[in-house]
């Protein structure tokens, strides 16, 4: 299962062979969120840990160029405590499997299921359970609170001021692991058909200031695409990518702080 693969990777980071030269305490406090996407034939598979968002913009060329948003990760800022508390989970989302909370999943080979079956097995289909996430953190000795002057809720060790994480799942967090932060990814899968698609993967630096709707309007105003039926067309979203980063930077100009921003855009249709 992919869960085990992520755990192996997590353990490798814990060993810190490659990072022994740095201060141990700081290394314990460090971790990472990640999104891994595999596109094969007409299927997209997504494994997500923490607040790196991925979504698909799909447009049915025959009727209009209006884009629909299909969430591959849970929300714009999935797995952050605030998103879970508000339960603003994207309504039009891919078929999702929650590996941690679905009991029947443990003996099932996800890979087999992913590649061989078109319809999800009802037994293993499970929605992401917010109560389960919060219960795990409180039972492990963590707590969720806001620091003065901050809008975001964060996860702390009970009564302490560290580590201040915003995700309930991440990889490489050693102090986090002791308060219920796990490295089991949330997994989703989607099949696509005719039409034009944009695959967008972006870190929270961008998603915090630009919602999916903003990104659609930037893409619509930036790239001109070819409108010829049955032709293998290739669009390079050069304009879009620089416009999105510029727009995000503009939002941060008001404050003195600006986070790292990275975005991957991929345009495709059935044929390329």
């Amino acid at each position: 299962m992919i869960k085990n693969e992520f755990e192996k990777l997590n353990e490798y980071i814990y060993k810190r062979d490659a990072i022994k030269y740095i201060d141990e305490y700081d290394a314990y406090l460090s971790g990472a969120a990640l999104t891994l996407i595999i596109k094969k034939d007409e299927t997209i598979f997504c494994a997500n840990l923490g607040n790196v968002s991925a979504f698909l913009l799909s447009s049915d060329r025959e009727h209009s160029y209006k884009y629909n948003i299909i969430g591959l990760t849970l929300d714009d800022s999935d797995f952050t405590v605030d998103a879970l508390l508000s339960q603003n989970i994207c309504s039009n989302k891919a078929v999702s499997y929650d590996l941690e909370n679905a009991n029947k999943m443990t003996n099932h080979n996800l890979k087999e299921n992913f590649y061989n079956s078109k319809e999800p097995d009802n037994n293993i289909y499970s929605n992401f359970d917010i109560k389960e996430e919060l219960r795990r953190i409180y039972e492990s000795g963590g707590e969720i609170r806001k620091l003065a002057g901050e809008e975001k809720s964060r996860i702390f060790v009970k009564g302490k001021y560290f580590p201040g994480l915003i995700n309930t799942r991440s990889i490489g967090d050693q102090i986090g692991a002791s308060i219920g932060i796990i490295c089991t990814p949330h997994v989703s899968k989607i099949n696509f058909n005719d039409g034009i698609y944009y695959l967008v993967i972006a870190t929270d630096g961008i998603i915090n200031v630009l919602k999916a709707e903003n990104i659609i309007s930037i893409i619509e105003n930036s790239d001109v695409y070819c409108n010829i039926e049955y032709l293998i067309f290739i669009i390079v979203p050069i304009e879009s990518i620089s416009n999105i980063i510029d727009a995000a930077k503009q939002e941060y100009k008001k404050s003195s702080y600006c986070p790292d921003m990275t975005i991957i855009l991929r345009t495709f249709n059935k044929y390329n």
Partner: protein
Amino acid sequence: MGGGCSKRPATVSRKDFEQKLNNKNKSETSKGNSNLADNPLIGGSKYHNYKYKNTIDNENNLIIFTQLDNYGNDFFVLDEDGKGTAYSNIYKSKGIAVGYSKGYKLDVYNQDKFFVMIDGMVEIYCLIDGHGPYGNIISQLIQDHIFQVIEYFYSY
């Protein structure tokens, strides 16, 4: 490979290409981090030798693309204020664009790392966002070792 791959002409010579690269890189890897290469977790990876290398091989439909340095930039572009960076990497043949920008903050390093691999009909995208004092090192470790996870899906 799966049945769907028959849409494109088979990439017969990919194995040969890998072998060539392996032989070519053997001398390079033996010089440097020998203890890393000996590690079964890393050394066992089929794509070990592509680490840190941006590869485009049109003939074999193989593209591997990652950030090269800790700053997350191949080179710096200063904006009007003289701070911050933005640079886009584009794959014209596949309709892919990656944009990244280091923020204005106390940390020196960019904590975001990405990884793109296209091998025929299979495409793999990974975006990693490190946090904490040494988030850049953690995300770098993941970028280097994400192959283990990918191989699980790739070996069908």
